[in-house]
């Protein structure tokens, strides 16, 4: 896996943390903040056995790079990158990593937070939970009572 400053990529394979860190190393920087999203064993009270991520790469990668570029422009940081998995992930596996290096820690914390928040909001990636009981569910997709009409499907 090749990672460079400014990158956002969707990876079919486990994230190579060493390569990811290496891309963000910078002797001008005194602060490094890393966020990882892990596959956890429960959600909404149900026991989760594994996750399946689907990404629409032709838009996910450009949108992700746009978010990383926004962070590099808005915050006083030197380097930033992110990688998101697709495919099947087991419990505890990192589904996404976001790394930011900067001179001072405040900007690194804020930029890292910005990138993960925007990824979760704007990038076409979907998550299917496979439960211990064998059933599955795409996360946050079903219409639930109380949802306003304009947020509904149809």
């Amino acid at each position: 896996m090749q990672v460079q400053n400014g990158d956002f990529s969707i990876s079919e394979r486990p994230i190579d943390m060493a390569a990811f860190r290496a891309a963000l190393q910078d002797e001008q920087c005194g602060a490094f903040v890393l966020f990882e999203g892990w596959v956890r064993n429960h959600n909404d009270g149900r026991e989760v056995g594994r996750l399946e991520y689907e990404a629409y790469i032709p838009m996910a990668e450009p949108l992700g790079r746009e978010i990383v570029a926004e962070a590099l422009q808005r915050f006083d940081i030197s380097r930033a990158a992110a990688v998101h998995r697709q495919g099947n992930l087991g419990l505890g596996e990192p589904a996404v990593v976001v790394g930011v290096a900067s001179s001072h820690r405040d900007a690194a914390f804020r930029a890292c937070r910005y990138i993960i928040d925007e990824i979760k909001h704007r990038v076409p990636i979907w998550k299917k939970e496979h439960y211990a009981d064998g059933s599955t569910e795409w996360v946050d997709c079903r219409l639930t009572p109380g949802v306003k009409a304009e947020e509904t499907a149809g």
Partner: protein
Amino acid sequence: MKRLTVKWFAAYRDATGVTEESVETAAATTADLFAEMTERHPALGGYRRALVAINNEMKDWAAGIGDGDEVLFFPPVAGG
């Protein structure tokens, strides 16, 4: 009438049972088209409407659709 391609992802693909389909429609906007598609695939009615893109660019639900467009309907995203 225009002819265009509609692509379904994730929960929508499971609900419609298709990855992509060729559609002939008089719908003017993305919202109109989604409503029409929900009539064709009633299972979509159980899902939230979220994001839409045309030819790989994000659009809103008032965006016009044209002949030959590729319209992508995205369920609520859930990365991370």
